[in-house]
């Protein structure tokens, strides 16, 4: 029997949250940027070992201030995926501030940090910039090329299953 888990994608606007979701669920990608307002929800079943897990993924409207997120969106989440844009420093310069807020309000929900759009940057320079800010990204991904997308969602699912 499938277990369902809610994941919420968080981050600044334009970092590629919706693109990651579409790449993962539909295996599609569009260069055009379309703003997400409110919340857009998709689901996909993955198999972790022999266990089917239905991921209900909430792609919520981007913001630079996580204190502004509507609590109802984050309610009942089993994991947060914090997405930043590897090509725009401003989308990860306030990461620790936002992480502090999440750990204070949702202490039991694990946060996975994803640097998206790595196809646009020099990874070595990015790593250096992240190190300077003490940021440890769990994955560097590209919704455009598909790099690490399947992997990160599957790993998050496995982690949730382990924590359940």
């Amino acid at each position, binding site marked *: 029997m499938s277990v369902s888990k809610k994941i919420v994608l968080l981050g600044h606007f*334009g970092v590629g949250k919706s693109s990651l979701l579409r790449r993962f669920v539909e295996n599609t990608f569009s260069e055009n940027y*379309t703003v997400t*307002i*409110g*919340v857009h929800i998709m689901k996909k079943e993955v198999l972790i070992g022999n266990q089917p897990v239905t991921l209900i993924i909430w792609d919520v409207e981007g913001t630079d201030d996580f204190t502004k997120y*509507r609590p109802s969106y984050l309610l009942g989440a089993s994991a947060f995926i914090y997405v930043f844009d590897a*090509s725009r*420093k401003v989308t990860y310069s306030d990461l620790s501030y936002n992480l502090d807020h999440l750990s204070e309000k949702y202490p039991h929900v694990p946060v996975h940090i994803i640097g998206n759009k790595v196809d646009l940057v020099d990874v070595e320079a990015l790593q250096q910039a992240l190190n300077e800010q003490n940021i440890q990204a769990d994955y560097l991904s590209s919704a455009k090329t598909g790099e690490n997308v399947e992997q990160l969602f599957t790993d998050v699912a496995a982690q949730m299953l382990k924590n359940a």
Partner: protein
Amino acid sequence: MLKSLQEEFLQKNTQVIVVDQEAKVLDTTNTLMRVKKDTLLTDYHPFFYSITSLFDQEKASHYFYCVQIEVLSKQCFFDIRVHIDPKKAEAVLFIIDLTDHYKSVHQIKQVRNESIIDFNMAQELNNQLEVQRGFKNKFLANVSHEIRTPLNSILGFINVLQGTALNREQLDLVNIIKSSSQNLTAIVDDLLDISKIEAGRLEIKNKRFDFREYLDRLSATYALQAEEKRLEFTVEIGEKIPKFLVIDHLRINQILVNLLDNAIKYSHKGRVTLKVFTQSRNLRKIPLTIEVIDQGIGIDQEHISTIFDSFTQIEKQGLFGGSGLGLSIVKQLTELMGGQITVESTKDKGSTFRFTLDVGVSHDQKRKKIEKRKTAIEPVAKTDRKRILLGEDVEVNQLLLLKLFADRKEYSLDIAKNGEQVLKFLDNYHYDLILMDLTMPIMDGFDTAARIRSHSNKRINKLPIIALTARRSDEDREACKEVGMNAYLTKPLDEDLLFGTIQKQINKYKRKKDTD
């Protein structure tokens, strides 16, 4: 009436669904989306999946804003209120269709976010360019400095060699080496200037300056150069041009020298003209226009837009030499001074470089500033031999100075390899002056000078110190002043300037000592 309108609105825009704890649909109004009774609500949209976990929570009510749900292939935006009744083990969902409202919000946010992202990207690009530019400037400054040090030795020894008994052929060859070395020095200087301008470290220093006298001297120099290439050289200076301007004369000279050098270099026949004029008789500020016109090889339209870029040369075949930095420096200096430069050119017919800038007019157009009384270089008797201490770590530079001093019987030279040794020598011997390299191991020139100035012995702490350095930055010059050095000479050393400065400083020191 109002009630019926309200009911009509609610009927059209809201849907109520009642489900049990398993999310089985017990009842529905089916206004917005078709949901069958006794089916599972979770089958209709993943949103309903997530909320089933809330049914067993204590909180009775939740409100979800702007949930995107596709209904009959149409993207809808709903606000959904979920009311849980634990006693009945039921939940009631109130779904309100606000698609039109959220779509208008969507358009506004789309435009806003796109412009912010564009701005972020531009900032990001700017930062990257800044980093690259900083790296380039640092690289240029370091390389220039490294090249200047051996170049100093080459030029110094060429001067020594010129003073030896050479036959005509040898002298010609030495002259060629000297000329090439001087060209190389000019290129290195250009590189340093470019790096300074781009790093924003070059300051414009406006001072009262006899502009007309300067133009006369400049014209005389270039008339000679033009004559060597059988070119005609004419100068037209407008009658409204004041004699004294308030201007950075070093930089205006750099601009004009570059433009006139180019005009002569790229002309094989005809005339080179320097025009200086203004339309204004204002007593405080005038718009100055300077044109350098030649009838040389000209620039084709394809290259004219890049002519002021660094490392651009019209002729790539190396016929004319140079680094291609001159015009870039001219443009950047002109802009730094608040002016503009333009070029008009026709291939094989010639070019006109025109630069305009607002310059201050000195309120005093008559008085020539009283020049500081030049200290006469007094002959020194052999018995009055002056003892000089040189602080220098590079052997080849030590050797060069030894050679230069060898012919000067009025001086003797001791050499210390670093600042620490300089201090030791000073404690043990009497000196009349110190020549101090700035970059030395163990203790550098700045530190050593500062220690000399704070020395308890008056005989030592007042000694004149001349900085000798391949570094030409204003910061270094200022730093030398700050630590109490008396003069600053840059390498490659000019022999006459070196001994002139030494004698001047010694005389000054002696006079001061006599009056104390």
